[in-house]
């Protein structure tokens, strides 16, 4: 019998449906893998083996009773600890929410359970999803399962969905949820040699996801391959009347329409993404990706996204501004940490609680956000940024008159070592240079493995599509995946 933990979403779903193995066997195998890796990788903040088993038992019972099975039936997954899960601690990797057990379930996680998935546990992440290396969690760094050759230095799994990427890459979860605000699904997927898609803004409900930056946050799947992403995204997406920005449109059958034949399709290569001093391995991977898509029948066209260089500064005004307000609710009154020094009044309690509860990066972004919204600065920073954001969005609209999807690298480098970039926030922010523009425009974008660098570490290729065209993105991703035949996987050292 194959090692069940080597199987992805489709294989587990189909195997369970056929009776090749039971959902309970699958859950047990992954529960064991999670337990075995937990100390080394620190991918989970809490594990919930009993939840995985209970969901599996329900699927097995349904199958025995001949009932129809859901899209994710029998698949145990990791849930990023940004999704509220009823009666299971939900922290956003912050001390300020330590011990918080919501009395509600996020829409996306509820849909996944409805589809027959089970929960292995709550995955670690950058605190409040702010970070690109998973070094800002209050519950310790996540360690990538990948290592450089002959080097045991811990590498970053990417961020903020670093627990998700590490778990999927280490094969301790067949798939995991992620959220992407400026690249938090795509960059960790790229760093760990897996696939992940951020759908069009509004496809997945934000209800019950701890908010970072409301106009940017989107949930999406992270899994081993494109098909698995398509299956899981179908389960996660859909209109939710509880979210004002939710898209009221049907969820297509993305899996059924997967097709790597790109004849008649045009792939845009954005001129402005060719940065000076680009990592040669990243540049080579990009060239390779172009060749693969040509091979799949696509026509390659050069396009221009003239405001690209302003995307990151725009993002680092808008996201902190929204975050400074979204995080005001963590005040020690209704849930989470309360730090009440002797004799403190209400406002002192707020200041003490927030000082003790938030990590350094979270504080930094709250302060930036507070500053750019404050009297006298609002127009110069925030309004200007929202205008530039309009221009960035227009850039994409124009480009998509000439092409169907855009191909770019996901991140400017392969995974770096922990500690390598954490001293300089700006250097860390530059990680998102290729991923942020699509976030600002709300467009669907995916990272798929696109080879390895000189150290054998994975590199990601990013496909960006038109709004609502997840299918085009998935299909181009599939075309790359088939040709890349990416087979590298981290050696198990834990």
């Amino acid at each position: 019998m194959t090692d069940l933990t080597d199987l992805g979403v489709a294989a587990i779903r189909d195997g369970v449906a056929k009776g090749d193995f039971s959902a309970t066997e699958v859950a047990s195998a992954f529960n064991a893998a999670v337990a075995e890796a937990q100390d080394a990788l620190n991918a989970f903040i809490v594990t919930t083996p009993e939840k995985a088993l209970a969901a599996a038992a329900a699927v097995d019972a349904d199958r025995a009773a001949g009932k129809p099975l859901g899209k994710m039936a029998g698949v145990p997954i990791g849930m990023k600890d940004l999704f509220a899960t009823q009666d299971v601690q939900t922290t956003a990797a912050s001390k300020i929410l330590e011990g918080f057990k919501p009395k509600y379930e996020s829409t996306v996680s509820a849909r996944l359970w409805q589809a027959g998935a089970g929960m292995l546990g709550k995955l670690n992440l950058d605190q409040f999803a702010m970070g690109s290396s998973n070094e800002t969690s209050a519950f310790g760094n996540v360690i990538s399962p990948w290592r450089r050759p002959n080097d045991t230095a811990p590498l970053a799994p990417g961020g903020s969905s670093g627990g998700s990427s590490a778990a999927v890459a280490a094969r301790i979860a067949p798939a995991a949820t992620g959220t992407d605000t400026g690249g938090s699904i795509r960059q960790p997927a790229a760093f760990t040699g897996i696939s992940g898609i951020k759908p069009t803004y509004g496809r997945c409900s934000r209800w019950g996801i701890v908010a970072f930056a409301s106009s940017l946050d989107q949930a999406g799947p992270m899994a081993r391959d494109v098909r698995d992403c398509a299956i899981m995204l179908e389960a996660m997406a859909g209109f939710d009347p509880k979210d004002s920005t939710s898209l009221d449109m049907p969820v297509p059958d993305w899996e059924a329409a997967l097709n790597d034949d790109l004849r008649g399709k045009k792939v845009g290569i954005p001129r402005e993404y060719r940065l000076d001093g680009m990592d040669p391995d990243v540049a080579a991977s990009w060239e390779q990706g172009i060749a693969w898509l040509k091979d799949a029948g696509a026509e390659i066209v050069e396009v221009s996204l003239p405001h690209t260089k302003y995307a990151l500064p725009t993002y680092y005004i808008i996201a902190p501004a929204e975050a400074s307000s979204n995080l005001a609710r963590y005040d020690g009154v209704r849930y989470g940490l309360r730090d009440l020094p002797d004799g403190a009044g209400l406002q002192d309690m707020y200041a003490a609680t927030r000082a003790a509860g938030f990590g350094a990066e979270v504080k930094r972004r709250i302060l930036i956000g507070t500053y750019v919204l404050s009297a006298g600065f609002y127009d110069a920073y925030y309004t200007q940024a929202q205008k530039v954001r309009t221009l960035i969005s227009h850039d994409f609209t124009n480009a998509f008159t000439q092409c169907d999807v855009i191909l770019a690298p996901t991140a400017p480098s392969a995974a770096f070592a922990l500690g390598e970039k954490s001293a300089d926030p700006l250097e860390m922010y530059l990680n998102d240079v290729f991923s942020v523009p699509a976030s600002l425009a709300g467009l669907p974008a995916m990272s798929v493995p696109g080879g390895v660098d000189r150290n054998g570490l994975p590199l990601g290729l990013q496909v960006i599509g038109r709004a609502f065209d997840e299918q085009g993105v998935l299909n181009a991703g599939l075309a790359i995946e088939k040709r890349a035949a990416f087979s590298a996987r981290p050696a198990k050292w834990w």
Partner: protein
Amino acid sequence: MSDYRIHGATGEWEVVIGLEVHAQVTSNAKLFSGAATAFGAEPNAQVSLVDAAMPGMLPVPNMECIRQAVRTGLAINAQINKWSRFDRKNYFYADLPQGYQISQLYHPIVGEGEIEIQLDDKDPESTKTIGIERIHVEQDAGKLMHDQHPTMSYVDLNRSGVALMEIVSRPDMRSPAEAGAYLSKLRTILRYVGSCDGNMDQGSMRADVNVSVRRPGEPFGTRTETKNVNSVRFVMAVVEQEAKRQVAVIEDGGTVVQETRLYDPDRNETRSMRSKEDAHDYRYFPDPDLLPLELTDDFVAECKASLPELPDAKRHRYETALGLSAYDAGQLTLEVETYQQFEEMLESVARESGAPERDVAKRVANWILSERPGVLRAAGVAVTDPRNTVAANTALIVAVSKGVISGGKAKEIFQQYLTSDIDLAETIASNQQTTDTGAIEAAVDAILAANADKVEQYKGGKEALFGFFVGQTMKAMQGKGNPQLVNQVLKDKLG
């Protein structure tokens, strides 16, 4: 033009007033959640996960709240902004779970409008137009209780997220009376529209009173804002006290500080309030959880079609179509309950007596405004008493207008009816006044004979005694003599 002046030591000062009124929108559910809005629930019972600002909670606006704001805007002839949006006003306080209030700063749903006030209810010419700058929709905050625990304040979020309209006037008022008249008129309009119940004692309407003083004709002075004043009387008191205080400050060589103040009704004074946000930097920005609110022409048209006849139009119609005095028309249109009773009774009386409404309007108006209130008071009965039916009132009014009973008898019967178990129709019938001229003449003769001295005096020129003879005759006839006939007979007999 108001000639209200503060007489300072150095001369006369004019007061300038603007009001920001927070009116609770009448709706079943809150502005952004499905929790109920009813008054007086158990603490934190009417709180949803959204209202408690749990992590990941999101707002979705309640259509009824938007509709009510638009209807209110239309009722004051305001511009309706078909494109509006919600902003966040950021500050930290224990009654504000999100750490921000969702409000509308940059693009309110209702733009400029106006309200006409009347300063003297007997003088239809004493009107003044007060400009409305805007109406925006926003969330109410929760409530803090300070006296239940020695070291803690308690937080109740039942009001958190209830929809408010903030109705902002222009600084167009110049006296306490104008401010009072404006608030009363606004309340009347909101109650007509049905967009706010106007229960000030339950906090459904609160006014922030902006007051400044200046020498007549000079530019505006620095203003203060006295928060959450919850009655017309208090608003007038705030204007008076605050204007006096400011004049005293200036005349003492000081300057008025732009600040937030509180009114203390026990001491009838305003005092400076410790501010909620020391720096007053609310960092407004568009709420990224919400999208622009775009109203269709159809939506606005439906709002318009749903409006009732409004107070000014109604008052005008009462004067022109029903021939009522300006005063009566004003009194009848002040409260929704009053005009509703009037119109119901008018319709009923006209139908029962087979007369056009115009012919019976005055009689119905008198009954409601001057005759019935005294009876209700004497009977110790509320206007809402179940026995105070349109049918009963109509029967009495019709009986009087047909000459079956006298007005005085009607009041007498009505009081009996309200306090005991009499059959109204029977009682009216048994008290039917007599039109038998012979009987009246006999009674008159007896009275004149018994009061020969007074007859002498009357004939000697003391004509005021006529009323005495009428009264004596009616008394002798137990109130059943037809008053016109009694008058006629007396006049004939006294020559």
